[in-house]
């Protein structure tokens, strides 16, 4: 199958495993506010490109790069350049909830 860059567009749901290696909360329901257009988007709806060498998550509204996740040499590099605010539901910690 011939693939174009466009074909490889996914959504933030597909980055949930990757982000789950970094964050201790469920990331796909966390709300990001885009620093470019102020749109509020659950991480699950961000537009995801690439996953193996690194993931780029863009705003579904204006297309601005919101997050870049790479893993060089056993460290996570998390670039949150386009996220003005991230809102995460508060509550009991997961260990307490279970």
């Amino acid at each position, binding site marked *: 199958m011939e693939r174009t860059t466009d074909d490889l567009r*996914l959504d933030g*749901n*597909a980055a949930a495993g990757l982000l*789950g290696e970094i964050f201790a909360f*469920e990331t796909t329901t966390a709300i990001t506010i885009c620093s470019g257009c102020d749109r509020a988007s659950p991480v699950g709806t961000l537009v995801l490109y690439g996953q193996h060498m690194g993931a780029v998550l863009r705003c579904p509204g204006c297309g601005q790069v919101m997050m870049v996740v790479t893993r060089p040499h056993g460290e996570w590099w998390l670039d949150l350049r386009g996220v003005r605010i991230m809102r995460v539901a508060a509550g009991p910690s*997961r260990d307490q909830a*279970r």
Partner: protein
Amino acid sequence: MTEGADSGPRLVWREAEVLAVVAETASARSITLRVPDWPGHAAGQHVDVRLTADDGYQAQRSYSIASPPEQADIVLTVERVEDGEVSSYLTEETRPGDRLELRGPIGGYFTWTGTLPGPLQLVGGGSGIVPLMAMLRHRANERTRPAARLLSSWRTRDAIIYRDELERLASDDPQLAVVHTLTRESPPGWSGPRGRIDADMLRAFAYAPEQQPRLYVCGPTPFVEAVADALVQLGHAPECIKTERFGPTGDR
């Protein structure tokens, strides 16, 4: 408040045991897995599966969970894709007693818990039906259920996954409608629609915007985007449309 089951702090890889492998179609297999310390999941969540070769090479893919939260052992339905490293192994080589590495459940956005108001409208393309099936199975276990419709698109009749079970569910439940459309063939006796899901088909078979349905769309990226655009064009509120894209390979 978030929906969906917690997946615990940081994701950990667990070793799961294959209990059963069932052929759903010529290319799709349902694999039942016993996962130690499985924390439970919500309908719509997925897992990551990791395979490690003898030389240490690893390949990892995501697969939606097909079984409802009520079931302790989880079921993944995997469709074999051309050149798919992981799906080929899972659909052709995996046998009961094998062990697989997986982590999950993952994702809380594309989930349905049954507590949301409004009828449930599911739209699936090919194996994009898998997380939607988890929702329908979960719904079937609920005492009070919203009305639900599934509209799914397949190349051929023989490619339809869960066809018999869906027929059974719908025949037992006047509140559930299941419609399949075929894009590549018109077999004798086929009474369902033909062709791709577009605005006309959604107008004919899906809930109207004024019925305020909860919309879940899952399938290959071009399918999901075309359906979501058509739904918005019909007047559905974008925030009521939840989508999950599989990418070009369908390896998820």
